């Protein structure tokens, strides 16, 4: 482990085949409906060769690159969480019997996944969800099973996105750990190879089926400069020092009203975020009413139902819902799980229909904490 080897472009095909031969469903980036998403792939031809993305607050578009890079883009609307923590899942089923009922566990036999092209920020997002789902007193057994079975092929970013701020969050762009294999794409006029770092025994075992050669010093330095290029091109910045305290001290900041005036409370930001973990549960009954299926689904703190208790929603005003989301992400999460809930992937900025930028909102509050505080007191 810790070993570096180099494979040619074809070696990637061999890797995909080896993973499939190992009984895994291989998931990787692919172009669909104008975006790079994560889906089942069988072949390197499924990868977004020669595509890149252009992202801005509220905008996303694909463009053709001048080269044939396979990983020459950043992150799209999908995150790996949809495979580890599906958007909808049956928890259990209850059947009425003669004088009682019986319950059966709903966990679908997990397909063993291999993820190809996991970015550093995404590895951190997975680590954060591990803390949420597995580290508490009541671990989520389904998540834990899927997670334990997942094989992770990470990829170092060779370029940064305009809405990315992983450097600020110390989550990238360089892949540091938490993978079985990691790739760095080495591409110029003369070559198209991948430097591979082996991160686990499972990774080493798979590499036995993939033609490779030892990495040269030139390979290593080419990989380093690719990552350095990404770090230098990072699009956004967030000052995290003192941010937690500033946010927790400012629930009555005027900025919440200002952002709420723009926010549509659509919840897009929570749906694309790789760390958001909130869910709701619903019952689905069959027509005869003898079987009830308990289904867990992704939920969003932007809905009114989310905080409903009889009589009304606790967070009725959009300002309260936006405040909950941002304060949870960047402040309360640290109290709850010992880490920020944001990895700086920029998805919420890109996919917000009105282009609300979490880095701008957080900075506005952190930089003028006292000045804009409303007087807040309970009068006589």
């Amino acid at each position: 482990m810790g070993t570096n080897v180099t494979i040619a472009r074809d070696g990637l095909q061999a890797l995909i085949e080896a993973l499939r031969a190992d009984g895994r469903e291989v998931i990787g980036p692919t172009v669909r409906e104008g975006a790079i998403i994560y889906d089942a792939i069988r072949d390197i031809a499924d990868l977004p060769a020669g595509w890149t993305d252009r992202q801005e607050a509220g905008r996303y578009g694909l463009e053709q690159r001048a080269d044939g890079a396979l990983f020459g883009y950043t992150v799209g609307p999908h995150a790996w969480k949809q495979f580890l923590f599906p958007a909808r899942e049956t928890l259990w089923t209850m059947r009425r019997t003669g004088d009682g009922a019986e319950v059966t566990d709903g966990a679908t036999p997990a397909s063993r996944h291999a993820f190809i092209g996991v970015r550093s920020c995404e590895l951190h997002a997975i680590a954060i969800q591990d803390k949420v789902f597995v580290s508490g007193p009541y671990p989520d057994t389904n998540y834990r099973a899927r997670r334990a079975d997942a094989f992770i092929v990470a990829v170092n970013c060779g370029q940064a996105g305009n809405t990315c701020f992983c450097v600020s969050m110390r989550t990238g762009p360089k892949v540091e750990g938490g993978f079985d294999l990691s790739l760095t794409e080495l591409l110029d006029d003369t070559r198209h190879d991948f430097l591979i770092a082996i991160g686990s025994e499972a990774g080493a075992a798979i590499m036995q089926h993939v033609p490779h050669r030892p990495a040269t010093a030139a390979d290593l330095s080419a990989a380093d400069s690719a990552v350095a290029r990404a770090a230098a091109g990072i699009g956004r910045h967030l000052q995290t020092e003192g941010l937690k305290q500033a946010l927790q001290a400012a629930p009555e900041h005027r900025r919440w009203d200002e952002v709420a005036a723009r926010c549509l409370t659509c919840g897009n930001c929570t749906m694309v975020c790789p760390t958001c973990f909130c869910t709701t549960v619903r019952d689905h009954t069959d027509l005869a009413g003898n079987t009830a299926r308990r289904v867990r689904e992704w939920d969003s703190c932007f809905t009114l139902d989310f905080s409903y208790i009889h009589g009304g929603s606790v967070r009725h005003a959009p300002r309260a819902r936006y405040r909950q989301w941002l304060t949870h992400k960047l402040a309360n999460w640290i109290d709850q799980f010992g880490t920020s809930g944001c990895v700086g992937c920029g998805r919420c900025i890109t996919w917000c229909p009105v282009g609300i930028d979490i880095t701008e909102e957080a900075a506005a509050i952190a930089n003028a904490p006292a000045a804009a505080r409303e007087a807040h007191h309970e009068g006589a």
Partner: protein
Amino acid sequence: MAATDPAVAADPFLPALYRVARTRRELADTVTLELLPLEGVRPDFAPGQFNMLYAFGVGEAAISISGDAAEGAAFVHTVRNVGAVSGALARMRPGATLGLRGPFGTGWPVAAAEGADVVIVAGGLGLAPLRPAIRHILNHRRRYGRVVLLFGSRNPGEMLFRRELERWRQRLDVEIGVTVDHADPSWRGNVGVVPSLIRHASFDPHEAVAFVCGPEVMMRFTATALLAAGMGGERIWLSMERNMKCAIGLCGHCQFGPTFICKDGPVMRHDVIGGLLSVREI
């Protein structure tokens, strides 16, 4: 909370099956259910904890345990019909089957309060989660200093556990204050809000511990009155309520600032959460 060994923990979403052994109508919209497990024995619980009760095909609701922790084989729950799930639970007849997960959450610090005066302040249905603590304290009466129970209801007809209150009132070792928000002139008891009883109660504010449960506004006013009486926020415990879907810290719904009511609560200390109580829509 008891640490569950992650390696052996069963799926925490799976309910155990229970049967309604007995029901008792408390008020027009409120019913007490005694639930026995179809298999095995009910787990132990601490006063103040809650279970997630599942009504077939309708859903789950967080319901506090209102029965004695040391007595009986059943889980006792007092449910007020306010909607779909609570309505289905409140309509259950003896023999009905339901799902149950729990017990969850923090309890009233009945052990830590030994040696101190205890002031219990309940509003409306808030008496239900306090009843296991009251029973415990009365069963171990000598371990505590003065015991004061203050209880507020909307009107005399909507007063929970009235007969049991009468029995408690017969005891000479508990000071009981009961009040209603309004009444017809035949009511001979107090009229006024429950925090107004605090001024007249006899306890040593520096030595006493307060357990408070009721609607959030009532708890806010009560905490203010207790603080005004000289009690420190670290001696005041409140039982909080938020939307709950999982009760195990995974669904995110019950967040209250940095806390999760389901696992850091529902019973929480005023000096820890007091600052959040006055933040609108937190």
